[in-house]
C-alpha cells in the first residue's frame, strides 16, 4: 500500500510534528514507577471487567439498581424507594426528569466534542494529513480549544441586519436539535420520552429547523446568506417527503409509531430494517444528508459557491452554535438511522450481555463515520439536480415501495405463516425492487452515467478547427 517514501516526512518540521505525540515515544519517556502503576491499573481493569462480565452472564445482576445495562432499573428502584419513604410522587418525576435532561445535554455535548475531534481526525486520515495533534494527547482537547476560541471571539452584527431575528436563529436551531434526542431508545426501557407518536415527533421536530435557517439567512441581510437559506428551505421541504414515506414503510411493518416498539420488532424478528427495506434505508440516509446539510447535499452552505450559506454573517459562538448543531444533527441522524434501520440497541441477543446504550452508541458512531466518509469523498450536487433527484426519483420510488410494503405487512401480520417465509419473501421482494426497480426507473427517466464518462481522444497531430473536426469524426 504505502511505500517507505510515503511515510518519510518531507521536511524536518514535518518529522517533528509527526514524532511529537507518538504514543510509543511517550511510553518510553515514562519513568519506571509510572510504568509499573500503569501496568497494575491495566491489570485491575481487566480483572474488574472479567468479574462484571461473569456477574452479567450468570444473571446475578438482573433487575438490580446497579444493573447498568439499562438505566430504567435504577430509575424504577429510585421511584420505589421514594414511594416507600412516603415522598410525594412529584419529587421522583422531577428528579428523574432533570437528571434525564442533564444526561441528554451532557451526552450530546460530550458527543459533540468527540464528534468534532473524530471528524477532523478521520477526514485528516482520509486526506493523508495528520489532523489536530497538538492540543492534548492525539489532539483530543482540540474541540475544547476551538470552543474557547469561538467563545472569546467578537460577535459581529451586520449593520443592515434585523437585530432581533439575527439573534434568534442560533438558539432556535439548537432547540430542535436537542429535542430530537427525546424519544431515542438507548436500551429497552431507557429513553427520555418514549412517545407513542415517536416517528411523527421525529419528523415534526426536524421540520422546525427550517425556520431557524430561513430566519438566519433573511435577517443577515446578505445575499449569500439569503441564497443559502432559500436553497436549504427548498431542499428541506422536498426531502421531508421521502423521509416521511420511508419511515411510513417501517411503521407499516411494525404497526407502531413508538421508537422502542420499532426496535423491539427488529429484535424480535431478528432482522434489521436495512435488510428488509434497503431502498428505504438509502432514501432515509440520502434525504437526511440533505436535511442536515452535509456533503454531498450541503448546498445550503456550499463553501465554494456561497461562502458559508445561511450562517455567513455569524461569528464567534453564534457560528459555533450553528456548527455544533450541524454536527449534533449528524449524530442525531446516526441515532435515528440505527434505531430505524440497524436494530437500535439490539444486536442478535448480545444485548443480554452488552449494555444497550453501548451498542446504540457504536451504531450511531458507525453511521456518523459514514457521514464523515461521504464528506471526505464526494463532490456536491447542484440544487436543481438535488430537487430533481427528490421529486423524480426518491418520491415515486418511495411510494412504490410503500405499496409493496403495504401488501407485505398484511401478509406478515395476517397470513399466519412462519416469519422466515413471510419476512424472507419481503426481503427478496424489496431487494428486487431496489436493484431492478431503481435501474429501470433510472433508465425510464433517461439517466445513463456510463455514457457520460468518456476519456479524451489522444492524438499526435497538430491543427485547428479542421483537425478538430477530423478527430471528432474519426472517433
Amino acid at each position, binding site marked *: 500500500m504505502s511505500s517507505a517514501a510515503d511515510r518519510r516526512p518531507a521536511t524536518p518540521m514535518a518529522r517533528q510534528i509527526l514524532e511529537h505525540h507518538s504514543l510509543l515515544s511517550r511510553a518510553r519517556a515514562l519513568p519506571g514507577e509510572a510504568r509499573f502503576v500503569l501496568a497494575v491499573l491495566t491489570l485491575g481493569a481487566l480483572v474488574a471487567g472479567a468479574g462484571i462480565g461473569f456477574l452479567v452472564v450468570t444473571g446475578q445482576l438482573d433487575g438490580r439498581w446497579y444493573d447498568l445495562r439499562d438505566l430504567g432499573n435504577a430509575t424504577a428502584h429510585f421511584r420505589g424507594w421514594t414511594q416507600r419513604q412516603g415522598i410525594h410522587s*412529584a419529587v421522583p418525576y422531577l428528579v428523574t426528569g432533570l437528571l434525564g435532561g442533564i444526561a441528554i445535554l451532557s451526552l450530546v455535548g460530550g458527543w459533540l466534542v468527540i464528534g468534532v475531534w473524530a471528524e477532523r481526525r478521520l477526514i485528516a486520515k482520509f486526506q493523508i494529513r495528520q489532523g489536530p495533534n497538538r492540543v492534548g494527547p492525539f489532539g483530543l482537547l482540540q474541540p475544547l480549544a476551538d470552543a474557547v476560541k469561538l467563545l472569546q471571539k467578537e460577535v459581529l452584527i451586520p449593520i443592515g441586519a*434585523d437585530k*432581533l*431575528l439575527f439573534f*434568534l436563529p442560533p438558539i432556535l436551531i439548537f432547540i430542535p436539535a436537542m429535542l430530537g434526542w427525546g424519544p431515542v431508545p438507548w436500551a429497552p426501557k431507557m429513553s427520555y420520552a418514549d*412517545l*407513542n*407518536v415517536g416517528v*411523527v*415527533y421525529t*419528523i*415534526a*421536530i426536524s*421540520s*422546525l429547523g*427550517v*425556520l431557524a435557517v*430561513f*430566519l438566519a439567512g*433573511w*435577517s443577515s441581510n446578505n445575499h449569500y446568506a439569503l441564497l443559502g437559506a*432559500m436553497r436549504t*428551505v427548498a431542499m*428541506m*421541504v422536498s426531502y*421531508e417527503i421521502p423521509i416521511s414515506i420511508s419511515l411510513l414503510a417501517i411503521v407499516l411493518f411494525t404497526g407502531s*409509531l413508538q421508537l422502542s416498539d420499532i426496535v423491539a420488532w427488529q429484535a424480535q424478528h431478528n432482522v434489521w430494517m436495512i435488510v428488509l427495506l434497503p431502498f428505504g434505508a438509502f432514501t432515509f440516509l440520502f434525504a437526511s444528508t440533505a436535511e442536515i446539510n452535509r456533503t454531498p447535499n450541503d448546498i445550503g452552505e456550499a463553501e465554494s459557491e456561497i461562502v458559508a450559506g445561511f450562517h455567513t454573517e455569524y461569528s464567534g459562538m453564534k457560528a459555533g452554535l450553528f456548527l455544533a448543531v450541524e454536527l449534533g444533527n449528524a449524530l442525531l441522524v446516526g441515532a435515528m438511522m440505527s434505531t430505524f434501520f440497524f436494530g437500535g440497541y439490539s444486536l442478535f441477543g448480545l444485548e443480554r450481555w452488552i449494555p444497550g446504550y453501548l451498542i446504540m452508541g457504536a451504531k450511531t458512531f458507525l453511521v456518523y463515520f459514514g457521514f464523515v466518509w461521504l464528506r471526505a469523498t464526494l463532490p456536491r450536487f447542484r440544487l436543481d439536480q438535488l430537487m430533481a433527484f427528490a421529486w423524480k426519483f426518491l418520491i415515486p420510488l418511495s411510494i412504490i415501495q410503500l405499496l409493496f410494503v403495504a401488501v407485505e405487512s398484511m401478509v406478515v401480520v395476517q397470513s399466519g405463516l412462519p416469519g422466515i417465509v413471510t419476512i424472507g419473501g419481503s426481503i427478496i421482494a424489496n431487494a428486487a425492487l431496489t436493484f431492478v426497480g431503481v435501474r429501470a426507473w433510472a433508465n425510464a427517466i433517461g439517466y445513463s452515467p456510463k455514457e457520460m464518462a468518456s476519456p479524451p481522444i489522444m492524438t499526435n497531430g497538430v491543427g485547428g478547427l479542421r483537425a478538430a473536426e477530423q478527430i471528432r469524426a474519426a472517433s
Partner: protein
Amino acid sequence: MESPGIILAFWVLSAITVAGCAMVLVARNLVHALVFLVLAFLGMAGLFLTLSADFLAVAQILIYAGSIAVLMVFAIMLTPLAARDNANSLYLLPALASGLGMAAIVSFVALVTPWAELKGDALAQNDPPTTVAAIGDLLLGRYVLPFEVASVLLFFALLGAIVLVHERGSRESQ
C-alpha cells in the same frame, strides 16, 4: 387528575398563544409577523399536549409550525417587490369588526357545545389515552366521508396549482 403543574402550563401556553396572535396583528414586518405566528402555533401545540392530545400536538408542529410556516416563507420570498415593512392597512376597522365577530362565534360554539368529557373512572381507565389509534379509527370509520371529501378537495387544489404553473411554463417555452 388535573395536577397544578398542568393547569399552570395551560394558562402560560394560552397566554403565549394569545400574545403571539396579537403580535401577528401588530407587527409591521412580515417576517416578524411570521415568527410570532409560529410562536402561536407552538403555543397551540403545547395546549394540545396539556390536553393529552399528543398526536394532535405533534401534527400541529409538523403541519403548522413546520410546513405552513415554510409555505409562508416562500410566499414572502416570492412576493415581487415586497418591501420589508407592511404598508398602512386600509381595512383596519372592517378587519377588527370581522375578527371580533369570528371570535364571538368561536367562543359561542365552544361554550354551547356539549363536550364529551371523560370524568372520574373513565378518565382513570384511559390513562394514558392512545390518541393515534382513536383518531385513525374515527377518520377511517365514522368520519370517512368528510375525510375523503377533504382529500379530494386538496387533490384538486394540487392539480389546480400544477395546471397554473404548467400553463405558464409552456407559454414561456414557446
